[in-house]
């Protein structure tokens, strides 16, 4: 027992590093009374060390803590993505002026952010329903508080309240679904559930309902239609750094969880076909259901984004649309689909964080988040505006940016699975998305700045971060095979 526990701990270093970071931040916050954001730097260091320990886990495949947590290539890929997103968000937070007026509470901010990172890392690596739920809640509760961090802004407080209410309801429904599932199969472990389901002759309808309920919880985190109603208000009200992490990391983690949940619990080991997963849970036409959700997300997200003026709100709706594109890959649930989701997530991380970062820089310097106020910025802040243009072009999916490659693979996965109607909808909604992305570019470049508005200066660190985000977008437009190979190897553990 002791050996196993010790062995488990040796596979748990990334998470332990995060936990220690959290503790150090708490203590440092009490001891160090400095104006400098020491806690932020501590968290940055913790994330970097955690990232390095994750790299050492590459290629491993094993189950720990009595099958509660696994370390496999799939989890490693997602954890790397999350840590990368976390590092960027901390870098953003260090520069955010929005958070500066709450400097006495910076320690709490980074502490909660660490908690959220921990929850998300557990979400993608746990294989037990109880652990999944705990991870889910750790993420949620930290993010509820973070959304309301700028509590003097009424928007922020409102967002936090809305997020808690929606979150509590959906996680309650999810918990109910989980309890029904456990009641039917008598197991909490995903693999054991799979065994139990395969040995059953009949699949009762209530089981289908329980899976639908679990889907509600995950859909809430991914912000996919029809569980998206919280997203715009929360994204708009939250501090922009938190919006970034919600739009990127939280979504990534929930998708990782969704994929693992479906492809481990419901895989039919007798017939390992692309549709094998869905055969174990007959009763509802699952692929059509998920395909319909994806299509709805694309349509609703893109159409509603058209009318937004607040850049955060616009990006929120765009992220709902992107959840739809990502869900297209889940519909396939074969190697192509999953690998293309992972490629998409990887590129999505850079382009979406980039867009949020530029929005934050503009918000820092001209104190506005309104797209209408962006007029003439192309001449006042050329580098940042060009970067924003590239991020938005990539989000649209126009070559030669990474976004194109991501869309190409998602589309081709769906077409190889025969989902032509879905891809057609995706293609048309992409055109719609062009309207609102290009509006930002239009406002930045096609209008002259007012005569009293000079060039905006940005400091060197911000330019460096911008370039770090920008280079991968352009690079992956041309050279992306290593990521794709990595992704393909990562999904092989599901027997695909």
């Amino acid at each position, binding site marked *: 027992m002791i050996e196993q526990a010790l062995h488990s701990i040796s596979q748990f270093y990334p998470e332990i590093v995060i936990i220690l970071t959290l*503790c150090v931040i708490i203590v440092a916050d009490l001891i160090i009374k400095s104006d400098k954001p020491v806690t932020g730097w501590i968290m940055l260091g913790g994330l970097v060390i955690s990232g390095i320990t994750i790299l050492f886990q590459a290629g491993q495949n094993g189950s720990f803590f009595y099958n509660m947590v696994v370390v496999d290539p799939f989890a490693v890929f997602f954890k790397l993505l999350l840590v990368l997103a976390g590092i960027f968000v901390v870098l953003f937070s260090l520069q955010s002026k929005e958070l500066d007026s709450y400097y006495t509470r910076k320690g709490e901010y980074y502490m909660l952010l660490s908690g959220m990172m921990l929850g998300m890392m557990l979400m993608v690596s746990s294989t037990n329903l109880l652990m999944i739920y705990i991870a889910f809640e750790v993420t949620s509760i930290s993010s509820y508080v973070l959304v309301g961090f700028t509590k003097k802004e009424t928007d922020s407080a409102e967002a936090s309240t809305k997020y808690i209410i929606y979150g509590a309801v959906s996680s309650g429904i999810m918990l109910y679904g989980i309890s029904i599932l456990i009641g039917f199969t008598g197991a909490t472990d995903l693999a054991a559930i799979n065994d139990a389901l395969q040995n059953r002759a009949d699949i009762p309808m209530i089981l289908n309902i329980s899976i639908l309920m679990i889907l509600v919880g995950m859909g809430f985190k991914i912000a996919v239609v029809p569980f998206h109603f919280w997203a715009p208000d929360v994204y708009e009200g939250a501090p922009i750094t938190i919006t970034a992490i919600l739009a990127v990391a939280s979504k990534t983690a929930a998708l990782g969880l969704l994929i693992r949940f479906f492809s481990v619990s419901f895989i039919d080991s007798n017939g390992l076909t692309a549709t094998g997963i869905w055969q174990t849970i007959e009763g509802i036409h699952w692929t059509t259901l998920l395909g319909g959700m994806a299509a709805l997300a694309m349509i609703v997200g893109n159409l509603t984004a058209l009318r937004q003026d607040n850049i955060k709100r616009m990006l929120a709706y765009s992220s709902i649309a992107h959840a739809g594109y990502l869900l297209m890959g889940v519909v396939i649930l074969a190697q192509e689909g999953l690998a293309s989701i992972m490629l998409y997530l990887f590129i999505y991380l850079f382009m979406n964080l980039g867009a949020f970062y530029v929005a934050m820089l503009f918000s820092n310097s001209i104190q506005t988040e309104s797209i209408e106020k962006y007029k003439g910025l192309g001449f006042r802040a050329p580098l940042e505006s060009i970067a924003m243009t590239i991020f938005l072009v990539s989000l649209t999916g126009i070559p030669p940016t990474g976004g194109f490659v991501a869309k190409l693979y998602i589309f081709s996965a769906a077409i190889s699975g025969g989902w032509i109607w879905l891809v057609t909808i995706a293609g048309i909604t992409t055109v719609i998305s062009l309207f609102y992305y290009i509006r930002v570019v239009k406002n930045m470049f096609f209008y002259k700045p007012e005569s009293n508005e000079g060039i905006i200066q940005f400091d060197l660190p911000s330019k460096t971060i911008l370039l770090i985000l920008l280079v991968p977008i352009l690079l992956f437009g041309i050279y992306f095979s290593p990521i794709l190979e990595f992704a393909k190897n990562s999904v092989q553990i599901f027997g695909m």
Partner: protein
Amino acid sequence: MITNFGYVLLFIITGALFVGVALFVSKLIRPDRPNDTKLMTYECGEIPFGDARIQFNNRFYIIGLMFLIFEVEILLLFPWAVVFKEIGWFAFFVMFVFVFLIFIGFIYELGKGELKWDIPAPLIPRYEENVGVIEEEEKRETVPSAKKL
């Protein structure tokens, strides 16, 4: 065939029926003579006074939370102590991690001054012309505590 969940449902229905029938029957046969004392809210024999919806200091809440945490700690520590001899140093290490994490939380509360029983100056929102309601939050001026008086 009734599944296990079916039994649960039956149990709930039966429970509801049982209560409903009992209340209905007693309604039929009991004498009905209300007076003021009978209609008073029951507060463990005390005579209730004032309104129930009053503000009270939310550090009661924090104390309650602290109590809960340490009570749970005791709950875990007790069985641990019973088997400590059999498991040995490993058990010590495990419990050390647990207590350490709780300790960090305690330190934090202590450091942030949440356990000081000072009554903070009440936040009185004041209204100014053309500015609106002003609440000054970060000011932590305290009135002298009861002990000092």
